[in-house]
């Protein structure tokens, strides 16, 4: 073995160590980024949603089309959670607002979402005509539960035809913390159907996307590190 060979091996070891360290560094950075994103999400949900904040996930309306008397459900993915339970002050509220109104900016009181004085802003009403207002999420976990079937029947003669956001909001002291929504079109007779094109709800919700991305980054880093390790001559 020549001096040159020894030098080469030494360089390879240094390079391998460097790659390993870089890989570890990348892994740590990726983890930190995911953690930071998660913390960011948590902190944003613990406070009032900023205007323009997108929904956590889409509401699924079943059946997707119907008439004013159709009983329909409007549910978030199961299970979905509020950032906290009722003991921590969180409540589940519902809303229907014109498409121009940002659901993130809604505030709530004992009558549901507070009117801005110009728009048609209401809670959703169940099939018996009771507004879905200030319901309590699951104890400890904040599970969104107990959402009734709704109907447009109480709105006949009140809501004009148009496009609307409908959904559920997790509120803290009457302020929107997070929300779930979808967009629909109401006819003059209050027949309803999904708004086309699809709303601004992400195809994959962030609470699903982030962990998958984190796993992909970590897995990728691990694979790269292994591949490089295998290709470096001993």
């Amino acid at each position, binding site marked *: 073995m020549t001096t040159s060979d020894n030098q080469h091996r030494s360089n390879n070891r240094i390079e391998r160590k460097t790659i390993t360290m870089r890989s570890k560094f990348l892994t740590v950075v990726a983890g930190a980024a995911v953690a930071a994103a998660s913390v960011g999400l948590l902190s944003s949900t613990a406070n009032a949603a900023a205007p323009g904040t997108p929904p956590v996930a889409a509401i699924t309306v079943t059946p997707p089309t119907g008439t004013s008397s159709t009983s329909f459900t409007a549910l978030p993915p*199961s299970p979905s959670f509020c950032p906290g*339970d*009722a*003991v921590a*002050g969180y*409540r589940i509220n519902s809303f229907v607002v014109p498409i121009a109104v940002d659901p993130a900016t809604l505030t*709530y*009181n*004992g*009558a549901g979402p507070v009117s801005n004085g110009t728009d048609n802003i*209401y809670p959703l*009403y169940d099939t*018996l*005509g*009771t*507004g879905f*207002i*200030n*319901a*309590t*999420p*699951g*104890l400890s976990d904040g599970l969104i539960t*107990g959402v009734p079937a709704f109907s447009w*029947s*109480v*709105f*006949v003669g*009140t809501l004009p035809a148009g496009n609307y956001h409908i959904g559920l909001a997790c509120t803290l*002291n*009457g302020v929107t913390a997070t929300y779930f929504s979808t967009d629909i079109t109401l006819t003059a007779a209050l027949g309803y159907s999904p708004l086309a094109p699809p709303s601004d709800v992400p195809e994959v919700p962030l609470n699903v996307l982030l962990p998958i991305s984190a796993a992909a980054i970590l897995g990728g880093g691990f694979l790269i590190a292994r591949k490089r390790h295998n290709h470096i001559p001993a």
Partner: protein
Amino acid sequence: MTSTRMKRLGAAVTTVALAASLVASSSAHADPKQYGALIGVGSDTTQDVLNAFAGFSAGTNYVPIQSSAASGQRQLISFDAVPAGSCITTKTGAPSFARPNGSGAGRRALSRALDGGLYGSAACGGVKDVAGLVNFARSSAGPDNGDVGTALTYIPYGRDGVSFAYYKASAGAPVTALTRAQLTTLFSTGATTIGGVRILPCGIQTSSGTFSFWNGAVNVTSGQESAGTTECNNLLGAGVRAEENTPSDVKARGDAAQAAVPGTEVIIGFSAANFIAKSNGASAGGITAGVGIGSISDNGSGTNLGSPVVGSAPTMTPNPGFYNDGTFGRRVYNVVATSLLGGLPGANADVKSMFVGAASAVCSPAADTTLEKFGFLQAPDCGATTITGSLLTGQL
């Protein structure tokens, strides 16, 4: 992992998911009626009759009143005013908060439930967000004089009479009839000798609707009443006022007054309906021996109202003339958010058909029968929505 194992695992996961969804959906339809009942808090005076409306009071079952069939036959539940200082949890998953003790406290809790403010006390872990945790308040008093607010609607359903309850520990007949003018003097200046008997006025706890009503009936301000009742309020501890409509408390004060100044008779504002309900056994507790309810020999307009009650237990009944008097008779109310009554015509049919209008559940013949068992008379304007007031401020 082999393909077979994967398939088995997949099948197991699918089965569990299906089972879970079945459980979830079936439980949603199997929830008990009381689970989604309208929640009431507040008045001591009307707690027993509201318990009866809910289906059970003082050891007796009643047919629960319900909202209309179209609104889902919603029931109500009602949390007592006492024991004072305890905590209540009105919904599953909800925080516990201080039990509203009295009409004022009930309306205050309802106000915070509507405006999203905080309610409670340190005794129950501090003030809490009670949004959605109270649907109506029991109130034995209307809005304050001069209150022109509209956020709360006071829906009358019963009439009551308020007179003074008395107890004299020593031998010799107690004074059993007083004029409004004499009551004004007693409750503004304190112990006074009338008919040879030293009479000592006692104060009701200040969140009580009976407290505020009685001050109006005997024409004193709360400041005057505070001064006039100081001696009695210090008999069982410094500044300890009486829980309203509690005969045992009247006796305890009478005994303490006798020990302090022999021959003293104590008096305190008292709901005649409660006196009847306790005398007849509809309400628990009974009437402590020696405690009676007095007559109003002049209502301030020259009318001798007599006793608010007729007959004796167990068939004691109200005196309609007394109950309908403009000074010593009163309505009792259920108080709800006005926002639930207006707006969309078809909305909130549960609240409307429970409380609003002569055909509402609370005004039904069946409810009237229950109401009278508890010593009230049905209000002629039962179910009216013309009386409104502001949200109350405060956290307890």
